[in-house]
């Protein structure tokens, strides 16, 4: 009986490793991308709540309109600030070229990828990025880790290096659950190798035609007191014309 169990266990281990080797690292990342976001245009309300030393300190709400650019297969995002009221109506266009628009001044200012990171809209941008497009992944191995709810998850541990100019981070460590392809955890590193952020996905619920994470937890590795919760709600598929993703469209957007 013990021998049979041993054989079965060995077969399961063999099956698991055969499954992993059949799947390339890039395919794993692509399947996790498909869990995070659909390939059809959609809009979502993104609520960013900053916690300082465990206490809610700040909140930003944005409407984000997302659509894949057929040329790059990467998402373009148009983010419109809703809250706080001092920023209401301001927009950030995050496509191949980045623009900031303020309806109070009717002024469009082109911004650099670095300047994008000074605003909260960049977080939404990073969370819709198709990582398989921007990064080259290598499978490090299998690991059982705790997710944000302290549940054990058996994951593929991937190492990803930036492969395009549009990649926001130079290097990412990524954990994707075996079998489900659910993204579980990621670590983001600066060019210098410094750990910047740790990200956990949680609250997997039915959204945009699939079981997808509805909350991302971003733990700041530089500022040890800061944690940001990013909640996605009111998500729906929406027809988004391509002209929305150019500077001259921005004054016409009336966000509903």
């Amino acid at each position, binding site marked *: 009986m013990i021998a049979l169990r041993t054989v079965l266990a060995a077969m399961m281990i063999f099956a698991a490793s055969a499954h992993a080797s059949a799947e390339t690292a890039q395919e794993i990342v692509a399947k996790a991308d498909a869990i995070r976001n659909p390939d059809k245009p959609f809009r979502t309300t993104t609520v960013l709540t900053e916690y300082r030393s465990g206490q809610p300190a700040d909140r930003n709400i944005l409407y984000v309109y997302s659509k894949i650019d057929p040329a790059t297969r990467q998402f373009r995002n148009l983010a419109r600030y809703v809250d706080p009221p001092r920023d209401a109506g301001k927009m950030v266009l995050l496509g191949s070229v980045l623009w900031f628009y303020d309806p109070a001044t009717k002024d469009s200012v*082109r911004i*650099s990828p670095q300047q994008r990171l000074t605003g909260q809209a960049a977080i939404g941008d990073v969370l819709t990025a198709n990582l398989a497009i921007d990064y080259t992944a290598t499978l490090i191995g299998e690991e059982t880790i705790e997710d944000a709810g302290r549940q054990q998850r058996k994951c593929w541990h991937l190492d990803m290096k930036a492969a395009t100019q549009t990649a926001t981070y130079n290097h990412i460590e990524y954990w994707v659950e075996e079998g489900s392809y659910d993204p579980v955890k990621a670590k983001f590193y600066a060019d210098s190798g410094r750990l910047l952020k740790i990200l956990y996905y949680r609250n997997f619920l039915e959204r945009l035609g699939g079981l997808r994470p509805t909350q991302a937890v971003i733990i700041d590795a530089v500022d040890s007191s800061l944690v940001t919760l990013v909640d996605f709600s009111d998500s729906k598929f929406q027809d988004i014309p391509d002209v929305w993703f150019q500077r001259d469209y921005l004054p016409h957007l009336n966000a509903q």
Partner: protein
Amino acid sequence: MMRKLAATLFGASLLWSAGSAQADDELDRIPQMAPPPAAPATDANQKIFLQNDVIGTVRRNDLVVAFPPPQPARWEERLFGDARMDWALGRDVRFVFSDRFNLRAEDGLDFPSHEDVRNDFREGYLAWAADSATFFDIGRINLKSGVALGFNPTDFFKTRAVVEPLSADPSVLREDRLGTFMLTGQHLWEHAALTVAAAPKLTDPSAIYLNTNLPSFNPMFDRTNASTRILVKGSVGLFEDFAPELLAFSNDGHWSYGANLTRGIGQQIVAYLEWAGGSSTDLADAALTYGKMTGTIPLAAPSLLPSDTTPSFHNDLAAGFSYTTESKITFNFEYHYHQAGFSDADWTHWFGAGALHNPAADAELWYIRGYAADQLEPTAREETFLRADWTDAFIEDLEITAFVNTDLRDFSSFAQATADYYVSREWTVGALTAASFGGKRTDYGSLPGAETFLIRVSRYF
């Protein structure tokens, strides 16, 4: 051998426990009982706020060219309500309204008087989306063009549009700017855009307003629709990151042309160039012509500067770049060229004529510089502009902005620094200080205001 193995195992266990402790530590930081996201408390299509500003100004007393009355106010108190609303009237029609209602008091202004109450009707227009890429707007519209920050040669509708600015920062100047009554049509393609705007003449040009004769309730179309203006502008993405915008602008049949170009360089730099050119006379002649036409300057008044009354082609240029650091500071550095601005000879004559202390001459000399300010154009021919914007400066929610304009002829400068602290989602407090530097016979050193201080409180709804 065993000792080495034991040491290795111990080391490994230390590493494992350190890694585990690190994971525990990061998981401990996650708020497990996070409240569900609340519904948006504000409307992205409107912005309403109340603001109070208290301003103090230190005058410069030893001016080479005496400043004519009224002198700059030593103190000002401004309370205003500001609203911008964007209502959807149907699936394809919107109405946009933008207005600022001011209560003000200041040194030298009668109280109570109608001057204590002022309203700026900035925008009010109907917008119709004929289809997903074709748009028509009609009404009072603030149409802005240009890619530079400190000086926008292609922003053809900027002239006379800014009323009572509270800051000299070009990015703030545009916040209380009157729109022009116009009809616009625009069609967008995925990588191209074409815009046509036509603004009719509704009234005759008016004299430049002083701080003491601003109307209380008047849309002031004399500032924005005193001539017939047409703008045609188009942009096209020719190849990756190269999408020039070309402009043609007619002001009562006098055509000017312009171009805008931006380009990203790496992750941190955006370079930009803005050019406009057209036939005109120089600043001194344009100012005197306008002053005589509107009755401010006597028709028989002689020109005190060697102005050229024959129109010729003049170029305006703003070229620069922005650079953002990893510590959230964005720098903008620009070179400005305004060919119609004062030459060396103009400055020499300006100070020379002013040194004679003739009040009528002083009024004319300052009128020329006031005209340039009213047109939102520099008096100087060549300037540099350096601006820094630091988000989360020193502490979270503190934003510091500073800029300095330097006249390259005499290296006199105007500098301003602003600090805004976002106390909460509703409240912001801020402070501003500005000063002009330079010798008595320099561009900025000859200004009547030496230093300005401002504190403000804003409440957003």
